[in-house]
């Protein structure tokens, strides 16, 4: 319902402005904080005007937080999650919508159930699996007594181990294994008219061609949206990278986890003045890549939303 009266317009603008301010003010405070000196930021008063120490603070944060390496880690992890998620969702939804096979509904519901199990809920078993991805198989072998038989026959004690901690695989895989994207794609595939599939079949296209030459090009806007959302989701992860990267000196961790280390505490300042200005500068740096991605991708999915091609 679109109604236009002057009063309504004014009210709409006021509400929008208040909303925008509420989002913008904290960001502005972070930016201002990142431009001050240690002394200035610790004076108990609210700074609203930027100082002129931005670049010092940025480079201090960059060095102290090893942000070069951390951002690389974050970038690889987020790209991996976003790409993996898009690919997996498209393929599973394709299978669910376009093929009739036994157990299809069962698989559908199994996937559906994972919606109720976000990473935070299953973090302990996920950690156990990541620590040794072959552990579930080992347990099955142990429980069924097969490893005992192997041991007595060959004298080899079976110990399957594949540690995923401190690796990109370990960071990425658990975040891919959720159903949200599958549902997005399923919904989209269900809106594709049957006649398109039939026309393509008459023209001789098989399932693979239909996926790559029809569904994927048609779902470009969906893909851009899902990719962006998943990139942000992965980039902002805190709990999982914190657990999955215990080797801080070697593999390191992600940029967002590292921010925690940049925040002043007794061990970093050694009891000196807390340097929030550097932490704020770190925040600015870590915020930048997702911001750029959204700015870049939004053209695609906004265009996709406006020019809906049936």
């Amino acid at each position, binding site marked *: 319902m679109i109604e236009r009266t002057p009063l309504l317009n004014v009210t709409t603008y006021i509400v929008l402005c208040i909303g925008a301010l509420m989002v913008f003010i904290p960001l502005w405070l972070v930016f201002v904080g990142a431009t001050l000196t240690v002394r200035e930021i610790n004076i108990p008063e609210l700074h609203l005007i930027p100082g002129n120490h931005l670049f010092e603070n940025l480079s201090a944060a960059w060095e102290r937080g090893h942000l070069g390496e951390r951002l690389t880690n974050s970038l690889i992890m987020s790209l991996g999650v976003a790409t993996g998620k898009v690919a997996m969702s498209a393929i599973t939804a394709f299978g669910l919508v376009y093929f009739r096979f036994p157990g299809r509904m069962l698989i559908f519901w199994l996937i559906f159930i994972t919606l109720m199990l976000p990473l935070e809920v299953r973090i302990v078993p996920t950690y156990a699996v990541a620590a040794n991805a072959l552990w579930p198989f080992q347990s099955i072998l142990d429980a069924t007594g097969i490893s005992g038989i192997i041991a007595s026959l060959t004298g080899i004690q079976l110990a399957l181990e594949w540690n995923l901690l401190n690796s990109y695989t370990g960071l990425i895989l658990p975040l891919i294994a959720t159903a949200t994207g599958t549902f997005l794609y399923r919904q989209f595939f269900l809106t594709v008219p049957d006649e398109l599939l039939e026309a393509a079949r*008459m023209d001789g296209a098989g399932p693979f*061609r239909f996926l790559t030459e029809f569904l994927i090009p048609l779902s470009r806007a969906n893909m851009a949206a899902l990719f962006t959302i998943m990139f942000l989701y992965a980039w902002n992860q805190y709990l999982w990278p914190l657990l999955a990267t215990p080797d801080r000196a070697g593999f390191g961790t992600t940029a967002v986890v590292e921010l925690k280390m940049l925040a002043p505490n007794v061990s970093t300042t050694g009891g000196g003045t807390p340097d929030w200005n550097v932490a704020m500068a770190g925040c600015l740096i870590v915020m930048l890549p997702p911001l750029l991605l959204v700015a870049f991708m939004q053209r695609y999915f906004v265009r996709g939303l406006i020019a809906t091609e049936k």
Partner: protein
Amino acid sequence: MAAVSLSAVSKKFGPNTVVDKVDLAIEAGEFVVILGPSGCGKSTLLRMIAGLEATSDGEIQIGDVVVNDLEPRARGCAMVFQNYALYPHMTVAENIGYALKVAGLPKADRIARIQSVAQMLGLGEFLDRKPMQLSGGQRQRVAMGRAMIREPKVFLYDEPLSNLDARLRVAMRAEIRRLHQRLGTTSLFVTHDQVEAMTLADRIVVMNQGRIEQIGTPDEIYRRPASAYVASFIGSPGLNLLRVNVSTNDGHIKFGDGQLLAYDRKIWKNLQDGPVTFGFRAEEARLASDGRGLSIRFSFSEELGSSRLIYGAVADEEAVLMIDHDEKFSADETAALSIPNSAMQFFSAETGRRIS
């Protein structure tokens, strides 16, 4: 070009039999129109031939090959869909050439064939547009081009003209007919519009509730409808149908209100005493100048330009008459109709089949 033959083809959706033991033999190069009301199973029949729907029973043959278990692409049919089903993300050229791309034809050959098809359909200047940027008639042509370019053995059309406005429909109808004359491809055309059927078909297949009522040339179907159902469906207006009682002894039929009409017993030998359905064409009955004949009470008229339709009632059953434009008549008057023996048709009251 290939012959198509169906023997005892049926389709069930759950308990519903949608197509019921259809036998149909289409000769190579023939243009056959499947005509029937909405929901009678026309599309289903066509889709079974295309391979988009599995048959529940029976055998479909294209050329010499039984195609029941073949994929659509292996059957050599091309289909034009009711709402065209153009590929929205491809240009007109890509739409038309897609089948060739799938078939792995080199690009240069593809372009040449797309050009020649586009030429034939007058689509030359639209090749780089997307379907969204075309008018309904142009989209229709693209759909035709997409089917033509494969040089299929059989063309299948599922109500391809029903989304066009009246004038465009007539123009496209002529175009389809012209294309068929030029290419000579066996064609099956589904429609519920009897004018389309009459103008396009070499032979018409009239369907009703999943069964074939009659197969015949447009002329046969118009002149000698095999059943009351076909008679009422074909022609505009359809055949007038009135319930009467035959008396073979006296050689007349008796209408509901007691009026009598004599018929020639030498022509109608197979008539038996009892109720039958009596039919006559609106354009074959005349207003009797001497006032003797079947009495009809007029209620209103429709102007057709060269002629006019007058609606009325004979023995409380609706009847239509077509008269010349300058013939005089006034509403709410009673007149007498003369119906020659050559214009009379009779159908069984129970089965609706024709009595000859």
